[in-house]
C-alpha cells in the first residue's frame, strides 16, 4: 500500500476533508436496492416464461449488455482491488505506523463508480436464489452496511482516529468481497439453469 502511494502521490489523502467529501455515492443506494428486492419483481415462479424477452420483460440485447457491463465492472474492480496475501505483512505494519488513510476504498473515484455498479447488481444476482437464502444474503449485506455506518458515525465524532480509518477500510473490503461473491453466486445459479 505504501509503495503505491509513493508512485501516485497525487491520490494520497493528507487530511480528512477530501476523504469525507468523496466517501460515499451521491445518495444512499441501500433503500432503493432493498425496495427493488422486496417488491414483486422477484416473485419466484416454479417455471419461468420462456422466450427472448427474458424473465422480467427486458429485451434480451439489453440484458446481455447490462450483464456485460456488470461483469466488466466486477473484473476491473477485482483486478484493481485484489491484495496478494503477502501484502498483509506490509499493511499490518503500516496500519499501526501510518495514520494517513491511503485507501482505494474511500478516496478512489473509480472505486466509487465500481462500487455503485456492484451495489446495483445484487438484486439481479439474488433473483435466482431461494427466498430464504436471498433473505440471509440481504441480512448480511445489511450487516456490512450498518457496520460501515457505525464506523462513519464514530469517525464523525473522532475524525483523526487511525483505528477507525483502518476499520473502515477493512469493512469496505468486506463489502466488496460480499458483493463479488453474491455476483458469482448468481452467475453460478443461472449457469446451472442454462440461462
Amino acid at each position: 500500500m505504501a509503495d503505491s502511494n509513493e508512485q501516485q502521490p497525487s491520490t494520497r489523502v493528507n487530511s480528512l476533508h477530501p476523504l469525507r467529501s468523496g466517501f460515499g455515492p451521491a445518495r444512499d443506494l441501500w433503500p432503493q436496492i432493498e425496495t427493488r428486492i422486496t417488491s414483486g419483481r422477484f416473485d419466484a415462479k416454479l417455471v419461468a416464461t420462456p422466450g427472448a424477452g427474458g424473465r422480467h420483460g427486458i429485451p434480451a440485447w439489453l440484458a446481455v449488455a447490462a450483464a456485460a457491463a456488470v461483469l466488466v465492472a466486477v473484473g476491473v474492480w477485482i483486478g484493481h482491488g485484489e491484495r496478494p496475501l503477502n501484502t498483509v505483512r506490509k499493511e499490518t505494519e503500516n496500519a499501526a505506523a501510518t495514520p494517513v488513510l491511503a485507501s482505494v476504498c474511500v478516496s478512489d473515484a473509480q472505486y466509487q463508480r465500481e462500487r455503485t455498479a456492484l451495489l446495483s447488481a445484487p438484486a439481479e444476482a439474488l433473483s435466482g436464489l431461494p427466498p430464504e437464502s436471498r433473505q440471509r444474503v440481504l441480512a448480511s449485506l445489511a450487516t456490512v452496511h450498518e457496520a460501515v455506518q457505525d464506523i462513519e458515525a464514530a469517525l464523525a465524532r473522532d475524525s483523526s482516529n487511525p483505528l477507525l480509518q483502518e476499520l473502515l477500510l477493512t469493512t469496505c473490503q468486506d463489502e466488496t468481497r460480499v458483493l463479488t461473491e453474491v455476483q458469482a453466486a448468481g452467475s453460478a445459479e443461472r449457469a446451472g439453469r442454462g440461462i
Partner: protein
Amino acid sequence: MRALILCLIGSVWVNTVCAADAKAYSEHLAASPTGSVQIDNVAGSVTVTGWDKPEVDIQGELGASVDRVDVTHTEDHIVIKVKLQDNLIHVPDHSADATLQIRVPQDSSLEVSTVSAPISVDGVHKASRLHSVNAEVHAGIAGADVEAASVNGNVHVSGNPGVVTLRASTVNGTVFLTHGVGDISAHTVNGKLNLELDGAKSVDAGSVSGDVVVRGHLQPEAHLKATAINGQLSMKVAADAGYKYDISTFGGSIHTCFGGQDGSGPVKGQVGQGGAGQASVHLSTLHGAIDLCDK
C-alpha cells in the same frame, strides 16, 4: 393419530417416488495427471477425491429435474456441468439434486462451484477453488493453494505442511480451520472464525459480526492481523522467539495475560525471548473485547 399415519404413508410414498425417479449416472475418461477439472452443480452434492490415476471417474445419481451432465474435455481441461431442465427456477423437492462422487488425478487443479450442494474435497494436491451458495464446503487434506468460500454455509478446511496459501471465507457461516499453515486469509460477515494454527506464516482474519478465535503457533517471522467490527477477538498464539503485539479497540475492552494491560487500550508490547523473533500480532475491534495470551 389417523392424520399422523396418513402423513407417514405420504412421506414414504413421496420418498419412494423420488428415489424411483433418480437416475444413475456414470462416466469415466482419461485425463492429464496435471490438468484442471471444473465442476458445476446446482443442487445435491459434490464429493471429489484425488487419486493416483490419470483418469477422471464420475459416479452419481440425478434427480428427475436434472436434464443432463455435460462433460467436455479439451486438452488438459475437463469441465463437468450439471444442467437442469430449461427455465427451472426454484424446485421445492429434491428432484433437481445431482449427487456426484468424482475422482480426479491428485495433481489436478480443481474448481468446484455449487448452489445448493455441499462440496467435499480430499486428496487434491494442487490448487483448489471451491465455491458454494447455501451449502457447506469441506476441504480436507488441502492442496498447495486452497480457496474455499460459501455464501450461506460453513467452511471447513484442514491444512497440511504442503499448503502455501489458504483462503477461507463465508458470508453467513463459520470458518473452521485446523492445521493452518502458510499464508492464511479467513473472513466472515455473520459468523465466527475458528482458526487453529500449526506454524502459520501470515494470518489475515476478519469478521464483521461474529467472534474470531485463534489458537496455535506462528512461524518466527509471521504476521497476524485480526479484526472484528462487532465481535470479540480471542487469541492464544505463540511463536518460537516471541512476537511484538499492538492492540486497539474503539469501544471494547482489552485483556492480555502479560500483566497490567487490562483496560480499553491501545496496548503495545512484546513477548518472548528478548525480541529475537520478528513475528507480530496486530488486533483491532470497533466494539468487541480483545483477549491475547501466548499460552
